[in-house]
């Protein structure tokens, strides 16, 4: 079985593309939020997600993964397409004609783009 970051990255990128197709208005961080909040905390046998301590003989050095190893968990494409709640980073964006401005808490408009 092929594993590791190099295998995970294109799979997660593919799921991100699916989300973008379903929600074209989503910003990158909104897509990341959907991927993260819906991730699975157990492996496909129901056990804890494991991490390898050493690069050589990885099977002999497994331990229960922490968020520093596994981030939010295993990506779950079905759930990521219906995340319920999303965490957005900006407070608002107003599009006025051809001018886009971003507003912060204090409702000052800044950074004309």
């Amino acid at each position: 079985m092929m594993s590791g970051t190099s295998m995970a990255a294109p799979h997660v990128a593919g799921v991100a593309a699916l989300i973008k197709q379903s929600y074209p208005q989503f910003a990158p961080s909104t897509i990341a939020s959907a991927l993260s909040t819906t991730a699975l905390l157990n492996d496909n046998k129901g056990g804890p997600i494991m991490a390898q301590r050493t690069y050589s003989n990885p099977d002999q050095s497994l331990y229960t993964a922490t968020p520093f190893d596994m981030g939010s968990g295993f990506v779950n494409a079905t759930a990521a397409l219906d995340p319920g709640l999303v965490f957005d980073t900006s407070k608002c964006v107003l599009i006025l004609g051809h001018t886009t401005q971003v507003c912060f808490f204090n409702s000052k408009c800044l950074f004309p783009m």
Partner: protein
Amino acid sequence: MSFPYVGFEDYISFLCGINGSDQVVFNYTGFRCPANNTTVSGFDLNLPSITVSTLSGMQIFRRSMRNIAGNETYNVGWSPPYGVSMKVSPTQFSIAMGETQVLSVTLTVTKNSSSSSFGRIGLFGNTGHIVNIPVTVITKIASS
């Protein structure tokens, strides 16, 4: 037309919020922090996770969540990282489609430690949505 969006400006504000970062931010982006009073506290960058390198005494974190599904009622549960007491409010909320809810998380050190500990917040919707937020605290310093 308006829609929530995350972008460049949030990350710039986050970087500007780091003490003494002005010159570095300017060198890499050409953006001058002092001219724009836009710094955010690193605690408040609206990510679906909470990570603290050093928690000293007590700290409140706020996260804003937007409902992109139908009307739903969420119950909030959590397990604190070892050595930290944790309070999340509200513990239950109803949210309509398109509405935003702020979650307030209070972390208080109960035991000094320099090793990482991990907790979690879970939001459980009555139509089946589950939202998971990992919480990590590395160094913990109890207030005297």
